[in-house]
């Protein structure tokens, strides 16, 4: 019985590979393929499905304009199912079987780390649209989300200067992004003269749902006579019960504001935001930003998805910027060959949705404005502060001893992602 099944499976697999190979070969002549690597099932589906739709929307728009280099674009969608090793397998499939010219995808840092070796080995291009912890710069990856200095540090500055916060709770989900971000923030706060006993760090597992103890701890920590704020790197589903508990225990934004780095319009869609008015989020884009580009984008998006209630958010804008940069670079290079496109991408500048231009820097990060928004009763954010100009993404944090000497510049002749200015060598600390 077992043998039969395995033989059947093998036959099935061969058939699938053959089928994919045939369709790939026949389609290659007249289209340029774009890979979309976002989870459509599992825990991350809640956030990543929207990004898959965004990419299909952007490709559709581009095709309406006549495609690229005289060819139509064709999307290849795969589902890595929130399973980190499967991300690597699916990336390999996209590059070597489907022969895509570039891949747009990943959300969590662990999924990005999982596909990195594949992109290096097969020399392809990945656009990564989510805010992340930094401490990385790879030749094959373009980071269109925020680095810590484009989100976390300005948010802390805002709380310190505008709200006069002296006591800090750093609360996060227990994985690499919150841990690294909090390490950077802790070093930054200490450099600003905050005492160790005025910083409380707390980690919770993915999907944590019982926040009673932690919220009442925060309340107690906030009653030391100094203005207190919570910096939240809590990710995914756990945010909903966290905010519900805050509201139920009556913690108001006027008393203890919470500034979040992973809560956007999409996440708020599942909560009644009435009791949360005034809590903050730091992003590089909000749906409420009032510019003609943004109004146009929202209108087209709602028409494409055929749903008036769908919101837009920051990672969607990151894909919008990344996709347009890729299109421009391919036009500049006149080919989709990865080496030519990687070289052409640096220096490309495209309009973002907040009324300015974003440019790809030599460290493969982009320039962005930083916005701080307050949650409103309708689930949108009201921008209360923004940086006067654009901020360049800083891949190696200046506040961590291991990385403060490192820089990244992928232009010739340096062509190095971790050049150490102290030792003058490429290859980290």
């Amino acid at each position, binding site marked *: 019985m077992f043998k039969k099944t395995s033989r059947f499976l093998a036959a099935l697999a061969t058939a699938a590979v053959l089928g994919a190979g045939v369709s790939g070969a026949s389609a290659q002549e007249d289209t340029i393929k774009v890979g979309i690597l976002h989870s459509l099932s599992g825990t991350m589906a809640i956030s990543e499905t929207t990004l898959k739709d965004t990419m299909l929307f952007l490709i559709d728009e581009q095709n309406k304009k006549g495609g690229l280099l005289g060819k139509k674009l064709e999307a290849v969608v795969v589902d890595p199912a929130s399973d980190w090793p499967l991300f690597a397998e699916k990336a390999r499939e996209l590059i070597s079987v489907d022969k895509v010219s570039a891949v747009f995808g990943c959300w969590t840092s662990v999924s990005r780390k999982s596909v990195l070796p594949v992109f290096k080995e097969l020399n392809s291009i990945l656009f990564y649209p989510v805010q992340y912890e930094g401490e990385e710069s790879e030749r094959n990856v373009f980071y269109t989300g925020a680095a810590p200095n484009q989100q976390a540090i300005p948010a802390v500055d805002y709380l310190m200067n505008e709200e006069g916060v002296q006591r800090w709770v750093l609360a996060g989900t227990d994985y690499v992004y919150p841990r690294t971000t909090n390490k950077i923030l802790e070093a930054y706060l200490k450099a600003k003269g905050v005492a160790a006993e005025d910083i409380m760090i707390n980690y919770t597992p993915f999907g944590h749902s019982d926040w009673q103890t932690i919220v009442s701890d925060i309340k107690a920590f906030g009653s030391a006579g100094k203005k207190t704020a919570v910096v939240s790197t809590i990710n995914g589903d756990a945010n909903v019960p966290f905010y519900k508990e805050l509201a139920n225990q009556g913690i108001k934004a*006027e008393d203890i504001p919470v500034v979040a780095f992973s809560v956007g319009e999409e996440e708020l869609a599942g909560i009644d935001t009435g009791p949360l008015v005034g809590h903050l989020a730091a992003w590089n884009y909000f749906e409420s930003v009032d510019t003609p580009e943004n109004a146009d984008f929202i209108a087209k998006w709602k028409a494409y998805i055929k749903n008036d209630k769908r919101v837009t958010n920051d990672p969607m804008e990151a894909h919008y910027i990344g996709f347009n940069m890729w299109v421009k670079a391919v036009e500049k290079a006149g080919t989709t060959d990865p080496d030519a496109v990687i070289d052409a991408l640096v220096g490309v500048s495209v309009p973002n949705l907040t009324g300015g231009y974003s440019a790809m820097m030599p460290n493969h990060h982009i320039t962005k404005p930083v916005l701080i928004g307050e949650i409103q009763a309708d689930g949108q954010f009201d921008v209360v502060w923004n940086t006067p100009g654009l901020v360049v993404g800083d891949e190696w944090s200046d506040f961590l001893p291991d990385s403060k000497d490192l820089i990244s510049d992928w232009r010739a002749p340096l062509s190095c992602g971790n050049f150490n200015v102290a030792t003058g060598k490429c290859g980290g600390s």
Partner: protein
Amino acid sequence: MTRFGAFLTVLLAALVLLAAVPRSEAAEIRPLVDALGKGGYSELDAAIGALAATGDPAAANVLQALGDGTLQVRKSDGAVFIVRETGGSFTLVDPVTGAEAGTESRGGLERIRVNNRVRRTIAAAMGSLTLMSPEISQRRAAVETIFRSGDPTQLPLLDEAIARESDPAVKQAMVEARASAVLKSDRPEADKIAAVDTLRTRGGQDALALLTAASGTATGALKAAIDEAIGTIEGTLRLWQGAQNIWYGLSLGSVLLLAAIGLAITFGVMGVINMAHGEMVMIGAYTTFVVQEFIRTSAPWLFDWSLAIALPLAFLVAGAVGVAIERGVIRFLYGRPLETLLATWGLSLILQQGVRTIFGPTNRQVGNPSWMSGSFQIGELAITYNRMWIIVFALAVFAILILVLRYTPFGLQMRAVTQNRPMASSMGIRTPWVDAFTFGLGSGIAGIAGVALSQVDNVSPDLGQSYIIDSFMVVVFGGVGNLWGTLVGALTLGVANKFIEPFAGAVLGKILVLVFIILFIQKRPRGLFALKGRAVEA
């Protein structure tokens, strides 16, 4: 229609009242009101202060509107109005006189934005403006904000208010607010020590915050008094902390109990390893969502009853799915635990993806009815209504289940079949149907657990997954086949978790509880309340 009539009456009354206000005063605050619409947050802050300083009762209305976000600037001349939106048209209301001042298009208006700092200033200003309001609830709110801000400039006002106050509770609150202001003022030391004494008697985290802040700058006898008061309050708070841990533990335990109680039947009583149990919880939660969605669109006044309506429906829907699973899959697999495990796990994936396809991958909003929102205070213990009702609900479900098993014919048949199948069959019991309905009962109870969990957790396709491990843990720990064991197991694990969490953190706390259970199972493989006798072998 009657509502509109009432509105008109109120408006007229307001107009009459306002007409009585001397003209000069209205003219005086008008420029101050218009100043609200100019400049950024800092200018807005200053303008609120200037407006509040007039002490004009009309200023309170203006500030209230500012806080509510209905105060807008007319772009053409910079005049500030309260704007009412009715069906797409925007009616301007003069904030000082309350008179209507025509309409304006959306584009011609700009809302005055407020941030947290401005909201705090508004609250403080409202505090001083409404301290002597005839409404007791407004006075109470006013005193609360003054207590927290502790603004020494409010002292003369507070003294006057205390002299006029008739309600003893509000008067006491005013005395405490006065103490908080005295502590920050430059009054003599003896006054301040008296204030510290008042705050010590009040106790609580708010008083502790004020005292800790004051301790930094105090010297001599005052510092000694403050430090002693801090010690006393902290001692009391520590006692309350213990009570709080127990309460939180019971609350977590009741959530575990709800999730596990259905499993205690399917796994504990029937011996079926049902990995799709969590998905029954999810189906219950989605049923609640559908019910609420229906109520929102066609019968909004029923919203507070939405959970009561969802309960039987969730039981029926999840129960029906359970019966279908038993009839369609599980009955062919009795006695083959490994295959049951794999089959039900596959089913759980199918159900998840099915829900994801129908409802989408994003979270669905399930609202809390008004009686499940907010919290109340017992001493220093904040009890949230949703948690309290879930504890009550979990115990009620448990009690009903025990009664059903003990005193109904179906319960009797169920126990007979699980204890000795051939004998029960010989007595004329249709064992396959009893199996199906038992499985349906377990699934149905998981469904109503989903109704309760939709109030504290996300309603997403993954809802069930996060509870399946915990549920098995509770059932195995409590003793397979014993419902009382499930009750004690759930509550024990909940309380233990909450006592470990403050020291070890949420992540390590969970690990420690798991390690504890593993060790416990080594010692007592059949759990807390092991079944004895021949039933064990069946």
